[in-house]
């Protein structure tokens, strides 16, 4: 079992930067362009790692440590998330809390690093980041409670390995669909995708994630971009794990199924980004509250 879990971690480490590539290619295809190469994110990372860095004279060690701390938190979180119907490396009762709070730690490091620059733009991005994530947190945790109750365990690995057999037409169907929808919203919000944030926008006033990392450069920026790809993988696999029933499949086909699910999710993300407009910032909380309500509804159905 451990071997499978290790392989899954390695696969995530290796393939995570492919997800933004797939999303971008989907968007390009839908817009009738050829788009950037699938491996563009890898090229960018390689180039950034070899670049010089510029630090603002305002910044302190907080700014320099921020990207490393954020990436470290996400890497450890990767060991907690089960993938493709297999248990994760680190699985214990309550691991879902460690997962949620590791994401919180990554955010904390990122936001303090942004505030360290003293730029009002990054302050603005930081303010939006904490606002929206504070609203996304209840959606994530309540969804997890609903699933935990359905599975009768408070460990992510148990939840995902036990719930996979409940195929969607059977008893738990509506609950799982609701939670999957809520996680989908959290996935889009936390990863700063449309309709929450436009990763391609060029106006700093409307950005959230991009403006947070405005002053980072070189390897630091590479760490942040790799971290962003990992986060896409982490939250994506939470949503995919619910929707793709892989129960009973031997490890290798299950793994392939899981991977297919991840890239399907990336394609869907690309389609959403091509067909929707970014929401006005004042409307964003509404969608997040809506996601919380979806989780709450699922929970009420489980409890009823």
């Amino acid at each position, binding site marked *: 079992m451990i071997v499978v879990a290790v392989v899954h971690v390695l696969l995530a480490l290796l393939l995570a930067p492919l997800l933004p590539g797939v999303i971008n290619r989907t968007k390009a295809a839908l817009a009738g362009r050829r788009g950037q190469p699938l491996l563009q994110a890898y090229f960018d990372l390689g180039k950034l790692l070899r670049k010089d*860095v510029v630090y603002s004279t305002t910044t302190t060690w907080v700014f320099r440590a921020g990207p490393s701390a954020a990436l470290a938190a996400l890497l*450890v979180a990767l060991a907690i998330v089960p993938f493709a119907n297999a248990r994760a490396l680190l699985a214990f009762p309550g691991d879902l809390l460690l997962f949620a709070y590791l994401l919180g730690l990554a955010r904390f490091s990122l936001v303090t690093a942004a505030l360290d620059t003293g730029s009002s*733009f990054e302050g603005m991005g930081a*303010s939006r980041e*904490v606002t929206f994530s504070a609203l996304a947190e209840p959606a994530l945790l309540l969804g997890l409670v609903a699933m935990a109750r359905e599975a009768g365990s408070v460990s992510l690995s148990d939840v995902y390995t036990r719930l996979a057999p409940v195929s969607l037409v059977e008893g738990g169907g509506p609950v799982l669909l609701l939670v999957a929808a809520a996680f989908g919203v959290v996935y889009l919000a936390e990863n700063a995708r449309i309709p929450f944030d436009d990763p391609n926008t060029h106006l700093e006033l409307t950005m959230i994630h991009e403006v947070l990392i405005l002053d980072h450069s070189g390897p630091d920026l590479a760490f942040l971009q790799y971290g962003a790809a990992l986060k896409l993988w982490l939250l994506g696999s939470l949503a995919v794990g619910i929707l793709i029933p892989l129960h009973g499949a031997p490890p290798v086909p299950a793994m392939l199924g899981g991977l297919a699910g991840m890239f399907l999710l990336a394609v869907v993300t690309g389609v959403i980004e091509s067909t929707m407009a970014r929401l006005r910032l004042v409307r964003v909380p509404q969608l997040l509250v809506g996601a919380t309500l979806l989780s709450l509804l699922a*929970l009420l159905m489980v409890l009823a």
Partner: protein
Amino acid sequence: MPLLLASLGVLLLGGLVALAWPGHGRGSGRVAAGSVFAAAVLGIIPAIRVLAGGNVMTLDLPWEMPLGSLSIGLDGLSAFFIIPILLLGAIAALYGAAGLRDGGPRRTVATSWLMYNVLIAGMLLVVVARNGMLLLLAWELMSVASFFLVMFEDGRPEVRRAGRTYLIATHIGTAGLLVMFLLLGRGCDTLDFNAFRIGEGGPRLSGIIFLLAIVGFGTKAGFVPLHGWLPEAHPAAPSHVSAVMSGVMIKTGIYGLLRVLTFLGPPPPWFGWVLVGIGAVSGVYGVLFALAQHDLKRLLAYHSVENIGIIALGIGVGLLGRSHHLPVVAVLGFGGALLHVFNHALFKGLLFLAAGAVAHAAHTREIDSLGGLLRHMPVTGASFLVGAVAICGLPPLNGFVSEAMVYLAAFCAATSATGSFAVSGVVVITALALIGGLAAACFTKAFGIVFLGEPRSAAAADAGEVAPAMRVAMVILAAGCGVVGLCAPLLPGAAAEAIRVASGASPAEMQTSVTWVAGSLRLVVLGAGALLVTFLGMALARRRLLARRRVVSAPTWDCGYAAPTTRMQYTASSYAHPLTSLLGLSGWTRREITTPVGLFPKEAHLRTTTPDPVQDGIYAPVFAAIGRFLLRFRPLQGGMIQLYVLYIALTLLILLAWKLG
């Protein structure tokens, strides 16, 4: 037990010597701090012995007081509270001895040290008292001592106002406690705890006693809506006193509540629901108003309300676990609450000390006038960061451990129970999730705006690091946060005696629950260790990558804007605005605004304050009405001593006539 008495004696003696010590107050501080240190060593030894499974110690002496006896005892629950009281008391004294020296005239400083020692001794006595009268006496001692400490800078009107608010609030609480103890001891001729008959008198009486305990102890603890004094008194007091008051004194309220619950027998479910409700409201209310504050210490005071809320959530879900016979939930809930008491003492003490250092160095607590302090005050800044991460409940520090235990209790309730019990788990989880996100917003704001960026005022730009002793105090607490976080698996076992007394679980149930949660915490620590190793790995990799590269310094990229000033940085108000307006606080925020006029506006100005709605909306009108009513009796106060003697004589005569007639 002799060690404990010696500890009390050293505290009182040290206070008196400090009062009499010649010189400009510096000596008093050293004497007092030294005595608190000695007392801490003396007192913590028996506490640890009891927690390690030693016998419960008691001491009974007769006392002339009606209903009273000098009866003290040391069981797991008392021992668990003694440790943070003495630990934080000693560390804050170390800080205060260095920080308070230029605070005022000698007499004030020396008196303040006497009061400090009395406060610590009072808290100690509260948690070991085994008699209602003795507890009330100790309670008053603690309250009055802390009142005088709050009034240290009594020249300032806002300090006097804060002191008055605190004195009134604390006495409302004491009144509740007096009635409660009389009800508990009805039918006996003593208020000794072991004379109280558990659960007798029917559910109605237990209910009334429980509610009185909530009012009496909750006023000290800061349950919403009884929290009004916290945001007034904490900023007014000197910082080492705020640290002690917020870190441990308000926890004596939690101790009292837990102790009284042991007298009431098996709790009905509504006890738990009341505490879950209070906890959810206090937690969310506290963090929300903290978010809207601009005064650093006021912000921290509201955070104490939030943390007391988390503790109440833990006790509430634990009580529900007891009512529904789910011992795991009970043990986890009470355990999380108790550990949060300890952890909060560490990180809130640390944060108040660091806030005091900031106020000391920059001469202001106004967050929007600070900025960039990390470069001038590296130790204070780093300590504050540690405290901030810990209070947000983020791994790998101690805050995560206790919050996770409360969470786990709620998860167990929500996943394995039925009916309203499961719903209570959902309420607790929702509240904690909301609190967690908002606390992160609040402390990125507090740390980011105060310590990062550029200084927003000349005072902040000239600030320098504080005295070495103050730095040592902060570093000890910061290290404590880290060590406790990494020793997480040992904590439930260490606190087991206290948890057993509070939760009423049997030893076998304790054993299974503690083993279960310790197993989880061991893996949490494994994760935390992996986090640290990965972080070090990333940092090393980064260093190697940068070694071969040019590292250039340049001004912050401001999106092309050429002439930024430090005043253009994001402020605390702007940072918090999206959340506060979204969550409906904007109705309470008062804005004074001077809008820019004309093509080349000269002056513009915006000032926001967020007063406390409970304070302004309920207490202020009520007290104003009482004040107006009492004004009618003004003529009675003639200012002549003869008149007052007449009043006393008349009262005595009337009482005598009534008794005999």
